[in-house]
């Protein structure tokens, strides 16, 4: 099952990163997200980061919801 909660990378050592999810830390493989750096949010599946979260895209989606709400 997919865990749909983005996790923040706190440190990186080689191919592995420590991520933080609501205060709980976990080690994940970063082999598939070479560009990810400390401070990035990643989508984690079965112990591996499978994609870096595009924070700009997340904010744009949220802005769209706000805009629709304003329009009614």
């Amino acid at each position: 099952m997919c865990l749909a909660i983005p996790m923040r990378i706190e440190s990186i050592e080689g191919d592995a990163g420590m991520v933080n999810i609501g205060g709980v830390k976990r080690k994940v493989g970063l082999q598939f997200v070479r560009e990810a750096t400390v401070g990035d949010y990643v989508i984690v599946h079965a112990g591996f980061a499978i994609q870096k979260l595009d924070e700009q895209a997340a904010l744009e989606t949220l802005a769209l919801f706000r805009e629709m709400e304003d329009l009614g």
Partner: protein
Amino acid sequence: MKYVEEFRRSGPVKNLTERIHRSAGSDPLIFMEVCGTHTMAIARYGIRELLPASVELISGPGCPVCVTPQQEIDRAVALARLPETIVTTFGDMMKVPGSASSLEFEHGRGADIRIVTSTLDALVIAGKNPDRNVVFIGVGFETTAPTVAAAIKMAKERHIHNFSVLSAHKLVPPALKALSEGPLKIDGFLCPGHVSAIIGIHPYEFLPEQYHTACVISGFEPLDILESLHLLIRQVRDNAPGIENQYKRAVRKNGNPVARQWMDDVFSPCDSVWRGIGMIPDSGLKIRPQYAGHDILQRVHLEVEPAEEPAGCRCGEVLRGVIRPPECPLFGKSCLPETPVGACMVSGEGTCAAYYRYQSWNAPLVSETV
């Protein structure tokens, strides 16, 4: 948690629900989700109850454990019975009944079966037990397959010869094609978010082009799913089916080419049997010959008889979206989460488990009220 709570706000939920009601019209629409995490989110957040009577949301074969045929479970059981063997698996495979046993039952009889949350944990177990064969039961879609590929590559590079995989992976787009050619007219697919994070949007292109089916790749929060449904309705009402990506924060057009490369290095497509659907061409993954040393099917000879589904179990029809769980005579009676008969009641993301846990399933179905 950041990027979670913002997508659950009640204001936009109300707004999107109103928009869906305004745009849906009265002609019946059938949308199918094909991801177990969507199935659970839809049930947990009561999304079906927010929809107009004309919009029916049905669950497809989105739970990897549920679509794994019984014969594959029997193979895993046979592996667990081999001497000097440790079977490693994701937790939701444990209770799935095979034709005569389950991994949980074998564990109770003394087999060494260990639940892991990552293939890397299975590799560690193999490293610590060099005199025993460690087999990982590889069940999952395109999201999971790269992580299994990574473990196989690492095992080869690090000479962990006692690690192998039973590859029972499945690919989503061939199943969508099989469903599109079935008797059920599906107006649109709510495409899986994290499978798409790997494969991108292009593998779905045949759906609007050949079958005129609307497609929206969706995130997992209530606002994501409602917005995706609104986009699906718009595509159908405008008679302009296409592929829209609602989950832009995690899904790039081209997916994750690095993860796909790992997957392609280790696996090649093969015909595969899906529970309830049957054989679908090129819908599975087999381990390439250069990694044969880590393919359990090439290391040991397993005799497993073809298996029949349990009497009365209608998981197959549930997986094709032909019936809803409450229409199965076993649902909520002899088939319960504690004593499941079919796989759809076992898995944490199975359709029957989702209905049982969250839905007011005694209420009339939407299809009966249209």
